[in-house]
């Protein structure tokens, strides 16, 4: 079984982002970038399926700037076999991204696509579901466990208030939630090996996908700052404030 894993290069989750003074977006200059944490979980799951003998090939694809090669290399060091970089310096919206990925899938013909449930920059949580719609495939979102069962895929999903289990027709789209697995750190020998693995360079035009932006970003601003609070001296004073001033207990 062939698995495709789309990955995104985003601002590292430990970085405190800064909104640009001209309100056009978030300042990305000289900021540490990493693979989106949910994409890491998706890569890890694919690698585990390969180690279990279920998957035969893992292809990692990223749509983004030239530097997204580093993100693909990270996935290759974790165990993916080869990469595809669809190079663009534009900000691609989820629907456009899904259209590009559909093109990649029609060429590569994977049996399953595993993605992160959302990227921690745009927080859209759309791409996997949109891709499933465009392909007419089933979708198992927010997965905490997946198991192949003949020609069906059983997916346990994290839903509000608990877990839901569904059975999907294959081929299927899976989006990874936090509990699916704990991604490994790539070992030094694997990092060295990853440097020799192939990465194909493509453009959006290669997939004749309409990925032009449709939404206008009017502005990006800082969230309302919290007013400075006070220090209380005792637990008794704390309870008093919560009950009589804030009125929350």
């Amino acid at each position: 079984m062939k698995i495709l894993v789309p990955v995104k290069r985003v601002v590292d989750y430990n970085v405190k982002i800064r909104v640009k003074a001209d309100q056009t977006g978030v300042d990305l200059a000289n900021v540490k970038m990493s693979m989106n944490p949910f994409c890491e979980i998706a890569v890890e799951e694919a690698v585990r399926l390969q180690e279990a003998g279920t998957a035969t090939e893992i292809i990692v694809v990223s749509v983004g700037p030239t530097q997204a090669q580093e993100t693909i290399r990270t996935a290759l060091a974790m165990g993916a076999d080869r990469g595809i970089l669809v190079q663009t310096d534009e900000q691609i919206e989820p629907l456009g991204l899904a259209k590009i990925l559909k093109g990649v899938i029609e060429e590569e013909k994977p049996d399953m696509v595993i993605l992160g449930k959302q990227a921690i920059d745009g927080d859209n949580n759309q791409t996997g579901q949109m891709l499933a719609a465009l392909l007419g495939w089933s979708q198992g979102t927010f997965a905490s466990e997946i198991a192949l069962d003949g020609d069906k895929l059983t997916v346990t999903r994290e839903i509000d208030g608990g877990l839901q289990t569904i059975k999907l027709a294959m081929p299927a789209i899976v989006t990874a939630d936090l509990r699916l697995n704990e991604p490994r750190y790539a070992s030094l020998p694997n990092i060295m090996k990853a440097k020799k693995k192939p990465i194909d360079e493509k453009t959006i035009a290669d997939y004749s996908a309409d990925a032009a932006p449709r939404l206008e970003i009017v502005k990006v601003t800082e969230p309302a700052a919290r007013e400075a609070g006070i220090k209380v001296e005792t637990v008794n004073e704390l309870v008093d404030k919560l009950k009589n001033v804030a009125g929350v207990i």
Partner: protein
Amino acid sequence: MSTLLIAEHNNQSLSESTIKSATAAVQMGGDVHVLVAGAGCAAVADEASKMAGVSKVLLADDAQYEKQLAEPIADLVVSLAGDYATIATPASTNGKNFMPRIAALLDCSQISDITAVIDANTFERPIYAGNAIQTVRTSEAKKAITVRATAFAAVEMSGSAAVEAISATANSGLSEFIGEELTKSDRPELTSAKIVVSGGRGMQSGDNFPMLEKIADKLGAAVGASRAAVDAGFVPNDYQVGQTGKVVAPDLYIAVGISGAIQHLAGMKDSKVIVAINKDEEAPIFQVADYGLVADLFNAVPELEEELGKIGL
């Protein structure tokens, strides 16, 4: 210029987040219709018809909609979408699951997790886990919207819209419901709790979390944790509040032994009142706390339990 609001429900009652999302739908202007798709869910349609500002309720009562799986719900909504400029739903795990599928089938963009309606086509939404607010405008003929319900007040339940039964669409059979395991806890669910008590690395061990649970039980609160506490194995992953965990915005958030890493702040800083208990007075959590107590949590938490008891909790 009308909006179709897809109701979230458990086939018995309408979710609070739907009643709040109706406010966003009304703010967008035009007629608001509500779709109740489920199985044996007529009572939900009756409840939905009472939401102020709603002019019609569409009821699709069919076994395939019982669990609101994405594939059948998307096919149903697409069959109805011709009449509507906006398709909206609460940004719950349910809505997040089916809405992008609907948007892609309609070839329109989705604007996720809106927190404010500026006008019919312009919205505010948090990005970077709420560390920035994006104002986004669409000029497309159709749009899909998911609503962060905690950012809107509930509509009055004073209306009386007509309920119209509609027929189901063919089932594609792509997905099948097998089962569900809903957390059986007397405590509320983390993302919808009015009070959350969270522990961090300062708790030192999972064995110390029952201390927080006692406080939570007195307050009717949910129990959460920082990523540090989860990574250290004190509690399971589903406790995690933060950028890569759950984003919460309760009335009261009590952070115990949590230093306040950016990743954690991103998940709770929209809480109305934040309390921090930490022995390190330099901890960044105090910068966002309304009430900070510099104390050893192993003294302060039992004392808090006692003080809450004194006021009858």
